[in-house]
């Protein structure tokens, strides 16, 4: 039998519930290839998700898994990681999940620089609830609650994570799967809070209302708006409008939270014994 990524599946759960062409499955594949390439044991991996289409991801993989409440994947993950720092903790979130209802947890997890990998599947819409606009819906695009076009500015999650204190930040898309797999692998291996945002599609809830009805149209569009970081930096402000830079934005080594906490414990215990 071939040892491929299907070894990580809870096979009875397949085929999965996602719509035809949904990027969630593509990102799941990338995550599993990255894990497979590192060679982590299933027992030491904890995958935590919030609520939404993307959050169903945890039901399909044979790790210690948790599908929590909307926006809260990271604080649940934080509790797990602090209680047992040996565990490899991965939080998978959607864009509404991570950046709207979970926005506070996202910046504070970055601020602590806790050794958790956050993977955000950004399909720029609330897919499961029927296509309401999210904090990552591009300005001017449509949603069921933005029938006249979205006037909100969208977050730059990568910039947000980097400025909040993360160790590793990268962005890719579901078109370039090799790239996101590479980013995810680096993020998983990074000691500290690591973030990989993956620009993804939602042909049903985003595509239909934005004239990108098929998965192929959506992928073509994602390809057309994505530019590498190097190219992006050379664009004028006007040229940058409507485009999304991809690549690695941050990769630094700074003190990690669980280690800092363990040091506190060791020091105080020594001090108490010394008395």
């Amino acid at each position, binding site marked *: 039998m071939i040892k491929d990524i299907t070894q990580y599946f*809870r096979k009875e*759960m397949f085929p999965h519930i996602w719509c035809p062409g949904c990027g969630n499955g593509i990102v799941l594949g990338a995550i599993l290839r990255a894990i497979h390439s590192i060679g982590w044991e*299933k*027992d*030491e991996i*904890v995958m*935590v998700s919030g*609520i939404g289409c993307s959050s169903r991801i*945890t*039901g399909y993989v*044979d*790790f*210690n*898994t*948790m*599908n*929590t*409440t909307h926006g*809260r994947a*990271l*604080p*649940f*993950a*934080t*509790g*797990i*990681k*602090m*209680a*047992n720092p*040996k*565990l490899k903790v991965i939080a998978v979130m959607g864009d509404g999940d991570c950046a709207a209802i979970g926005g*506070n*947890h996202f910046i*504070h997890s970055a601020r602590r620089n806790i050794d958790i990998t956050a993977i955000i599947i950004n399909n720029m819409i609330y897919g499961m609830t029927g296509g309401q606009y999210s904090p990552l819906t591009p300005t001017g695009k449509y949603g069921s609650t933005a029938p006249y076009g979205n006037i909100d500015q969208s977050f730059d999650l990568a910039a947000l994570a980097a400025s909040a204190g993360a160790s590793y930040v990268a962005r890719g898309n579901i078109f370039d799967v090799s790239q996101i797999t590479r980013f995810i692998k680096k993020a998983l291996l990074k000691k500290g809070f690591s973030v990989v945002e993956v620009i993804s599609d939602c042909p049903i809830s985003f595509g239909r209302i934005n004239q990108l009805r098929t998965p192929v149209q959506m992928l073509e569009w994602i390809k057309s708006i994505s530019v590498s970081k190097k190219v992006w930096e050379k664009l004028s402000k006007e040229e940058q409008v409507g485009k999304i830079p991809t690549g690695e934005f941050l990769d630094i080594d700074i003190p990690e939270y669980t280690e800092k*906490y363990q040091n*506190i*414990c060791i020091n*105080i*215990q020594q001090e*108490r014994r010394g008395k």
Partner: protein
Amino acid sequence: MSNKNRLIKILQGNEACVEGAILAGVRFFAGYPITPASEIAEGMAVRLPELGGVFMQMEDEIASMAAVIGASLAGVKAMTASSGPGICLKQENIGFAAISETPCVIVNAQRGGPSTGLPTKPAQGDVMQARWGTHGDHPMIALAPSEVSEILYMTIKAINFSEKYRTPVMLLLDEVIAHMREKVSLPFPEDIEVIDRKRPTVDKEKFLPYKADTDLVPPMADFGSGYRYHVTGLIHNEKGYPTSNTQEIDQLIRRLTNKVELNKKDIIIEENYFLEDAKVAIIAYGSVARAAQRTVKLAREKGLKVGLLKLITLWPFSEETINKLAQQVDLMVVAEMNLGQIVREVQRAALGECRVIPYGRVDGELINPIEILTKIEEEIKL
């Protein structure tokens, strides 16, 4: 069990809560600053690192509750503490703890409400919130101690119940007992019963994470222990996977409720004062029970046959005791610092066997013994 060598300390209620939690094996606390519960977090911040446990001040109340559940799933006894406004924020995740059957304790040092209300004054307005604050049908255990030493022991009980029944447990304090200082004789660890959750013993391949034993409680595996499973807030089957099968849904929701309801005898803690011959019963809990005890004494001095039923376990409710008592007494006075929460439960349980009247106070002051007595005297004359 000699008291002689025990360490005697003057402790604040919140400090006693910390001591109790640590004795019961709590090694994870996540919280967010709020009056009048902050001293619990402050105490934990000092004590837990000394023991290799984890204290975390999270970004908000919601995150605190989430982190507590996460830690518990990783196998560590976990607790949080807050007050009304913070408890409101925790409710969604308390529901998650209920459906995922994750042991955890939530302390609510009650203050006046609604909203910011009276942060530095006591109230008992969160009794129904404790029971029904999160949505959907779910079990709940809530304990309401009335003395500082009782806080210590009831914190241990709360942790034990949460572990034994795999369910969130609320410890309801109020601003007065949370901040009051009293003499506490600290028990030796060997003198107290500490209960740990059941862990699975079956083969890892055969493990069904939500298949309950005959006591309706499924054994619980720690994340990372080799028993890999899925935890979800969705209604799930015995395998832990989401289900929309009506039979499986019904089974789960009924089991969750029944594991507490059918174990009421174990969970309900109550105390009687002078109830043997009583014709009037005061029903009280928390700091009001202290005043009521004094009322009983004053009434007895006047020759009135007044007794007290002090409820420590508020949820599940002491229906059987109330019902029996209602057949004995002519009048029940339910004294509480709200406009009528437990009194409705008492009325329901009394089944019309006696008169049940509320005595409530919501001005931020404690109910005093005289006013309860006055109320009783007025009612007797009627």
